[in-house]
């Protein structure tokens, strides 16, 4: 009897949402009984092993790699969930959306008062994913089925969401579990 598979990842986020998921305390054992983790930092799979029932994605899209990853998740997950305020609205990384990208890089890597950068250029190594013009919420890039807000969402919200999604109920999050901070 195979258990439903869950994939998770963090894009332009801080991993705080994953920390909150781990903060389920002893219920983490129950969760491990309920599901099989697929691509996720929890088991360190870098690629999808099989099709997944649920994909939990933390963070918004700030660069080309984020976009490629979220498309990969969309392709491989039945229910795709944007987790946390960065995923649902852009969050802290989106603060750069109020400043043109070039100005942002200039300040961070050239003009900032504590910057030591003899090259006088922002980093441009070909290995680095290219930044997008602005940070995007996930639903602005691919179709998202369910949103779990919070900075981070509480362990209770994670538990309610994951158990509801696994049971197939199209449940709305109750108001007391909706938080934007």
């Amino acid at each position, binding site marked *: 009897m195979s258990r439903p598979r869950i994939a998770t990842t963090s894009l332009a986020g801080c991993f705080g949402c994953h920390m909150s998921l781990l903060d389920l305390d002893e219920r983490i054992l129950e969760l491990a009984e309920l599901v099989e983790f697929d691509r996720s930092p929890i088991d360190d799979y870098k690629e999808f092993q099989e099709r997944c029932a649920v994909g939990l994605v933390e963070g918004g899209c700030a660069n080309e790699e984020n976009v490629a990853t979220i498309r990969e998740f969309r392709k491989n997950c039945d229910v795709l969930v944007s987790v946390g305020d960065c995923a649902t609205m852009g969050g802290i990384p989106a603060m750069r959306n109020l400043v043109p990208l070039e100005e942002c890089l200039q300040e961070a890597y050239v003009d900032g008062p504590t910057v030591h950068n003899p090259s006088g250029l922002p980093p441009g190594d070909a290995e680095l994913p290219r930044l997008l013009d602005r940070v995007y919420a996930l639903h*602005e890039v691919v179709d998202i089925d369910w949103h779990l807000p919070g900075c981070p969402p509480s362990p209770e919200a994670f538990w309610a969401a994951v158990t509801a999604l696994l049971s197939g109920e199209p449940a709305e999050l109750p108001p007391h579990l909706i938080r934007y901070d």
Partner: protein
Amino acid sequence: MSESFKFYIDGVPVDAQPGMTILEAAQGAGIWIPRLCWHEELEPFGGCRVCTVKANGRPCSACTQPAEPDSVVENDTPQLREWRRALVELLFAEGNHFCMSCEKSGNCELQAVAYRLGIAAPRFEHHWKPREVDASHPDVLIDRNRCILCARCVRASRDLDGKTVFGFTGRGPDRRVAVSSTARLADTDLDVTDAAMDVCPVGALVRKREGFSVPIGSRRFDNAPIGSDIEASGASEPARQEE
């Protein structure tokens, strides 16, 4: 005093006096109608439209529409909830709201109404239009990124403080709260003790050096959703149970 009369909100009979708005009468009966620009000490403004109800089938803002004898008002219906959600989501998409780092978080009416309406995320694309911050005043600052143009500060300064410090300027996406006569807040006679300082539903008009003074868990909307105080005070519960 002229005769009081009855009308119906979602089938519940509600008492009203002539001249009362639908929102005021509902309030007296313990029925919460979501709202943002309305404030009990201020003249109704009818700007945010979050209190939209249907009175005898016609949409209207409950904060400006007088209650009519025997009229039938719809408040908590799927259609109205959907309209209100769309309005509130648009406010989030239009402004630059970073709840996770905002000092008003937990005490913010915009946030609290969004929670209560069940908004997990805004469905619209964000505008990300930069808006000005005015921190020139020694005790007060305006962060227009968080402003929802409810005009509470405009009305409070004019009607309660007698100062008319605030007004609106610009149109459409350029509309913003401005200060009278001069460009900067420091040049006005706004005082940190003004009534206008107490009415902002969001974190747009705030006192300096006061943020984050209440710990998470004890803030205004941490333990009870917005409107629950009104519902707890009301006499409508038995009538609702009869339905």
